[in-house]
């Protein structure tokens, strides 16, 4: 299942950068601080504070970047403790013993480690740690008192639900992991941290539940993650595009979500999550076509309603894809297909329209895409105005002016509404792209063209894989067991097994499944 095209990427460059700053630390504190300043070119936000321990002669210093650390913590738990050491406490003759004592006793920070190279120091400082130097020691203490401004946990913006948890991920990876931990208290929730970005050195966490997930998936995901060679990964989209199976596919091969409940339920199904520092969007892999048409709400509501929602969503996806194309082919190729009355009324409404159906449809679809894009870019209040101006005014005026027919307007409006029922934004993008394909096919070959494009998409889908899992499963390869939770959502007591297609180590998701 491995695709080898990732293997080729430049490994040499990585080693070159890593080897660069493995310089030892000097015993002389002045020299050390000078070195640090030289390396970072003495920026304004690099704070170095030299002081003496207690009231004695022993020189010490701390260094940190302003804005990345929690200053209150620094003041109360480090500086104050060290400066106020009484005489007898610092009577140690040996500097090394004093260093150990400070490490063990005086600094009241829970996350602290020793560093011995300039590289340790610069990495530590740049990722928000504070470094403590003691004169006469060739080592430093790297103290984690990361702080700075972060956003509070808010409601999810892109994935709103009527019923369900109201929390959403934020930009801080620590908070995000804690949100997942709060949902899954299982001891075998594994979080493997690594760093991506040669220069950004962003933290990336691969999360999975051992004992559920198929180890092959974890292996494959980690293998692909190791090949990442980027300067910077500001959004999980960078990771997604680097490790996805097919870059040519219009379909998203990983799911992105900002809902902790979606992540935790996916982990418990046997998937893996990729969490990146600095973005609220967590990636979930592997993903299949059926998965991206599911919404967590299907499970939160009772099964009848859940099933209704699912069916509606499939209809929505169908309309979003096919409706303009069907309109084009009916109007320009198969007029006879419509009931005579409807055919006449469509023909009458198209009376003054100077364009063929395809041009008419393209005009309106492009207008709709523009409106959608404009609405996203503009601040919310203006965005709504755009919707009204665009949707109502332009639509009405276009009909009045005789550029498009009212039926066309209905078709486009219905298409737009149907497209918005897609639960995942990335899928709705694919549908938008494919819609154009269908429209072209309809313009050339009518329904025959539409069905051929549909066949082509199916060909693509059955050949697509997401981390070794066939993308079209459980449709094909057919897994009857998984069909219960696909277009329909079976009652809770029938969903006692984890998805078959994930080949999990632990198949049952409830005790009742045991027989």
């Amino acid at each position, binding site marked *: *299942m491995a695709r080898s095209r990732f293997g080729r990427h430049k490994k040499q460059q990585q080693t070159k950068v890593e080897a660069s700053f493995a310089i030892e630390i000097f015993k002389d504190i002045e020299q050390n601080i000078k070195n640090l300043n030289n390396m970072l070119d003495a920026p304004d936000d690099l704070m170095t504070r030299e002081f003496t321990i207690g009231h004695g002669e022993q020189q010490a210093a701390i260094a940190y970047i302003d804005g990345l650390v929690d200053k209150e913590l620094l003041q109360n738990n480090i500086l104050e403790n060290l400066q106020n050491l009484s005489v007898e406490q610092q009577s140690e003759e040996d500097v090394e013993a004093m260093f150990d004592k400070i490490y063990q006793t005086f600094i009241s920070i829970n996350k602290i480690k020793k560093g011995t190279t300039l590289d340790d120091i610069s990495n530590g400082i740049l990722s928000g740690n504070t470094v403590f130097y003691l004169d006469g020691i060739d080592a430093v203490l790297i103290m984690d008192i990361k702080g700075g401004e972060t956003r509070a946990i808010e409601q999810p913006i892109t994935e709103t639900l009527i019923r369900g948890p109201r929390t959403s991920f934020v930009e801080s990876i620590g908070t995000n992991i804690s949100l997942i931990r709060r949902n899954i208290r299982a001891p075998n929730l594994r979080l493997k941290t690594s760093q991506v970005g040669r220069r950004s050195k962003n933290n990336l966490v691969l999360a999975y539940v051992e004992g559920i997930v*198929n*180890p*092959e998936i974890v292996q494959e995901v980690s293998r692909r993650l190791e090949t990442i060679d980027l300067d910077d990964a500001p959004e999980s989209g960078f990771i997604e595009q680097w490790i996805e199976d097919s870059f040519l596919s219009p379909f998203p091969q990983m799911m992105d979500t900002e809902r902790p409940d979606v992540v935790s339920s996916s982990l418990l199904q046997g998937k893996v999550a990729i969490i990146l520092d600095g973005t609220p969007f967590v990636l979930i892999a592997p993903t299949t076509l059926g998965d991206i048409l599911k919404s967590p709400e299907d499970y939160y509501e009772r099964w009848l309603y859940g099933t209704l929602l699912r069916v509606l969503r499939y209809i929505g996806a169908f309309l979003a894809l096919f409706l303009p194309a069907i309109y084009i082919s009916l109007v320009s*190729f*198969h007029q*006879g*297909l*419509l*009931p*005579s009355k409807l*055919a006449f009324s469509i023909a009458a409404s198209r009376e003054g329209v100077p364009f063929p159906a395809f041009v008419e449809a393209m005009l309106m679809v492009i207008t709709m895409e523009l409106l959608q894009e404009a609405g996203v870019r503009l601040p919310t209040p203006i965005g709504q105005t755009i919707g009204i101006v665009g949707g109502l005014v332009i639509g009405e005026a276009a009909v009045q002016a005789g550029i498009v027919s009212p039926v066309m307007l209905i078709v486009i409006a219905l298409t737009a509404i149907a497209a918005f029922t897609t639960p995942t934004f990335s899928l709705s993008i694919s549908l938008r792209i494919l819609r154009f394909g269908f429209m072209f096919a309809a313009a050339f*070959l*009518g*329904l*025959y*063209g*539409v*069905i*051929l494009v549909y*066949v*082509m998409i*199916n*060909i*693509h889908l*059955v*050949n697509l*894989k997401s981390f*070794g*899992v*066939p993308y*079209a*499963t459980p*449709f*094909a*390869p*057919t*897994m009857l067991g998984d069909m219960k939770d696909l277009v329909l959502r079976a009652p809770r007591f029938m969903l006692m097994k984890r998805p078959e*297609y994930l*080949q*999990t*180590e632990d198949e049952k998701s409830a005790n009742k499944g045991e027989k």
Partner: protein
Amino acid sequence: MKWFTYADPKIDDKEIMIIVPSMLIGGGILTFPRFVADETVGSDGWIVILIGGMLTLLVAWTVAKLATMFPNQSFLSYASAIVSKPVAVILTFLLGTISMLIASYVVRNIANTAKEYLFEQTPMEVIALTFLLVVIYAISSSRIGLFRLNMLFFPFIFLITIIIMLLNIKWFDFGDLLPMFQTSFTGYIKGTGSMITSYVGLGILLFYLALADRPKRAPKMVSIGVCIVMFFYFLVFITCIGVFGHAGTANLLNPTVELAKQVEIPGGIFERAEVVFYVIWIMAIFNTTTMAFDIAVLALHSIFKKANKMTFIFILSPLIYLISMIPENLVELNHFGTFVSYVSAGTTVFVTILLLIIAKIRGMKQVE
């Protein structure tokens, strides 16, 4: 620990079962009630369908038995073991060529019917070409993908056919089914003869069963597949007779499509339901074509192992297209179709029996 075995290029039981109807049910279903009704009296055609089906079942079972005697071996390799390499190469080449002819026939057939039902001005050549291009796309992707496409499309085809039959109940007249058992013996023979053209394509199993996940179960699965086809044909034929009467069925060009034409969808969303029916049937015909084409590629590829799969596709595609353009009118096309069907059926039976008998004579046991 479990592994992703289902992602491997192996065909599982369900897929084997579906290969048969996907291959057999192609363009033939649109026309066969006419051929059958031509030779028989009243509703006796169902006997013909049954006899044809039983023969097919026998052949399918034998083919599957032969192929599964040598599990996971390609046709060329087990044929070489039985009748020496040169003869095996000739047989492979023969089967591959026939497969190619089937593909050409189906491509032309779909272009003709599509022109009849969907288009007024679009030239038949363009319709055939676009269809062939999509087929090429399918073949140049993975082979296992074809079987998955079968799985994806078959439910649609099955459902739409059942729906058409159900919506025709209103016009169904049991009186039309009478008289029964009035056909002469020669009528049955002739009917079966023409019915066999709708059961053609089992030769692909000789090649595809090498990919079977559990070869032991293949004969059973293949037989179920043939039964599905029989059931399908039976249903369509009886409905045709019940709705159009015997004379009507015998005189309609495409009785099955006419059935769809009869349908009045409640609420009157579509006036001409046969277009929808036909469009969905394109998927069935597509499956037949891809598998026939793919077997041609597979056969050539097994002979010339070193060449790239794409090379064969590029060589065969223009050939298939050109051959499909040879028949000048419907009559010639029908002759071509009948010819291809009989040759294909004959070769499949001949090759299978030849190999089986020689294998028995040489005392070859089932290889594990």
